[in-house]
């Protein structure tokens, strides 16, 4: 299974619909300070079900909705679609309501509104947060797998106390 593309609309600084195609191998994301690179990383964690606003550098979940610029008004919601390909034997969608079979391509969608409420979809079928989380359960993706290392996080692994590090190992296990 591999990451095929991400579509971001209204999430943090991505006021306009933005599409990024990923290839197998290494994709580099570059640009000046503050242009939105880490926001892309945040959007991936968010659509996969990140529940902590603090982990996304915000004080509340609605803080990830584009809140305007000099020339633009804030948007009413944020939406991210993450598409995976070659999923047939890796992600099991057959158990979800309204989904008959395992798909070869799976798109996970999340929306959040100003009141902080989120909606989740798998291949356009509405579902719950736990469906998204269990979808990725045995794949090594997901918040405790360390497969997503946000800016500054690696320093915390070393400066963590021996006890905190234990938790890191338990999560990876």
């Amino acid at each position, binding site marked *: 299974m591999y990451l095929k593309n991400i579509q971001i609309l209204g999430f943090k*600084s991505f006021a306009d619909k933005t*599409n990024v195609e990923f290839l197998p191998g290494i*994709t580099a*994301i570059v640009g000046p300070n503050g242009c939105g690179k880490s926001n892309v990383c945040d959007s991936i964690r968010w659509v996969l079900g990140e529940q902590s606003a603090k982990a996304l550098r915000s004080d509340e979940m609605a803080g990830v909705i584009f809140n305007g610029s000099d020339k633009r008004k804030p948007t009413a919601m944020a939406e991210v679609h993450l598409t995976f390909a070659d999923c047939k034997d890796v992600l099991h969608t057959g158990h979800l309501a309204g989904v008959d079979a395992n798909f070869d391509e799976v798109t996970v969608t999340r929306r959040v509104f100003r009141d902080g409420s989120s909606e989740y979809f798998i291949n356009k079928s509405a579902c719950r947060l736990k469906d998204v989380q269990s979808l990725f359960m045995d794949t090594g993706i997901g918040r405790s797998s360390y497969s997503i290392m946000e800016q500054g996080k690696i320093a915390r692994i070393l400066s963590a106390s021996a006890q905190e590090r234990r938790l890191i190992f338990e999560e990876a296990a």
Partner: protein
Amino acid sequence: SRQMFADTFNTIRTNFQQTFIELFGGGVADLNLIEGEDPLEAGVEIMARPPGKKPQTITLLSGGEQTLTAVALLFAIYMVKPSPFCVLDELDAPLDESNIDRFTGMLKRFLKHSQFVIITHSKRTISIADAIYGVTMEERGVSKVVSVKFTGLSKGASKKPDKKS
């Protein structure tokens, strides 16, 4: 589950001893469960000795050495259960150029199992990418993505703006 933790811990430990040597070109590193504590609660201690140096507390290591040690641990964890994709945000920031080369050298070996998305300011890291996306804020406060694609590892980059769909 206590057995499961012990097994995973031992695997990560063996991997870490290996990845450290590869990233530092030598030296010794280890992970230890703190003595005298219930193994279900014991904290994890990191020992790291770069080549040619005497062992000391890891706090005395330099910023770059600490980062490289943490990267060795991260790859040691990845070896246990490779994820289909990994997103790494500015892991290379404290590393000098020769350490970045060691980091990217190890990263390439993981490509068999995982796809990588790497956020970076370093030209050296960018040089190993198969595809590059530039994020800009031409209009202040609004992010826009421009793709600068490489085909394979050829350096024939053609800058074409990503079509907004």
